[in-house]
């Protein structure tokens, strides 16, 4: 049981949650309201950029999980 408990903390999902939360946290601390690019606050552009970061994290997770499954099947 001890082994199982340790194993669950190595789950790729938890690593991705930590990465996502860290990126979001950095943004919310930064919060650059007074800088403008093309008339729109940098806050808006940074959130827009994060759409693609979230997508990238999801792609990495899906590939990672499939590799683990393949490895276990072998």
């Amino acid at each position: 049981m001890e082994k199982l408990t340790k194993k669950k903390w190595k789950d790729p999902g938890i690593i991705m949650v930590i990465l996502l939360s860290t990126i979001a946290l950095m943004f919310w601390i930064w919060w650059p309201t007074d800088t403008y690019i093309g008339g729109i606050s940098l806050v808006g552009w940074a959130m827009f950029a994060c759409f693609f970061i979230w997508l990238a994290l999801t792609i990495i997770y899906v590939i990672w999980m499939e590799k683990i499954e393949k490895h276990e099947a072998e």
Partner: protein
Amino acid sequence: MQIMEATILGIYLLIMIGIGIWFAKRAHSSEGDYWTAGGKINSFVGSFAFFAAVASSSSLMGAVGSGVALGIPFLLAYGFGAVAIPSFAMFLISGQIRRAGVKTLPEFFKTRYGKSVQIVSAIIVVLCMTFYMIPQLTASGLIGSYVLGIDYVTAVIILGLGFTLYAALGGMWAITYTDLIQGAVMVIGMFILTIIIVMDHGGVSTLIQDALAVDPQFGDVTQPWMSYFGLFVAFLWFGVVSPSAVMRNFAARDAKTARRSALGACFLYVTVFIFGFFIASAGASLGVAESLENQDMIFISVIEHYMPPILAGVMLAGLLAAIMSSADAMLLAVAAGIAHDIYKEHINKEASEKTVTRLGLVVMILASIVGIIFAINPPQLIAVMVGWVSGAMLSAFGFPLVLGLWWKRANTAGALAGMVGGTVTFIIMALLPFALVSEHLVSAPVSAILTIGVSLMTASPSQSTQLQVDQYHTNIQA
């Protein structure tokens, strides 16, 4: 009445109801088929289904309306959380909850914590999902009244009852397969509208400048930091705590299919929010926001201004499709909460599957009527109402669910305290004057503290329950 738009809408709704009837026989063959489509949905269909269930009227009309009314950063904050909905749910709970082998969210609470938590959660699911019908019905009423030239109240009643009939007939089979069509119509429609807008304005930067010329505050952060942060947190957690999204997860064929479906849904969400950005910019450049009775109408104004009637008809069908799929998934969650989790589990264990699905039908009609009554005079912007529901569900279910899956020390008393305490705190916060959509920033931590604190102060769960939690994490294939 807009003849062309009304004709296309009518044909579209007839096709959807036809699909509902087609799948009705299959759906009523067993409870598993009715609630989760027998767990046989593939990745492609699953992507659109997950996306269409979560991308409600709010993602489209609401986000655009709020982006014009409160500035484009508000729309982007919405997307900042919403794009991560499928991914965050997948990272945190999807695999584990599938391994629990349950059909609904309250059923998970029963296997993990026992009957008391199941009953409380079923009641909260029913209340939240019924409230969630209000923004969906508001949006459908706005579209219906515009297209059919009838008054808003009549449109809400007609469309609300139409949705119920369709969802009740087919269960999850019908909903999942029509979601494929609805999701596709939504994304393609927004794509075409975006192309027309960008061409009309002669490029992206001109479009933004046109919007700023009409509304100089369009690019500004107009609300307190808390409102944006609250919106982000509410939507980020939506896939984890929303019973309609969680039920989608059970409909996938296997874990690999469920993950690929979530990836597909994430991609679709990114495209929709990019298109939403352009549509909101076009909406601001029209300068009609202040003159509208309801600012959520701005999306319809953009469609009407930029698209020829035939394309506008398709686009409005897409919008109505988004509402329909979300409303149907909610109705199904309400029906499952009462018929499956309360009636069959606690009132009449011997009830036949047919009786349970029939009861589900009656519950759907009742929930729809309650939603219609409230939607006649909607309390807020669509985006705000959706934010409230999401915040309330996060306050009630977020920590009892996630801790139940990841922390074997979480027990029944802790889950009950977290669920009830979080809900009550949310209601108190909602009654106090506070920054828009940020009530859950207080109530969710209260729920977390209560779940952890009360669990630690009371006896540990049994050895078998603790082993069960470890088993959620053992077999990656399951």
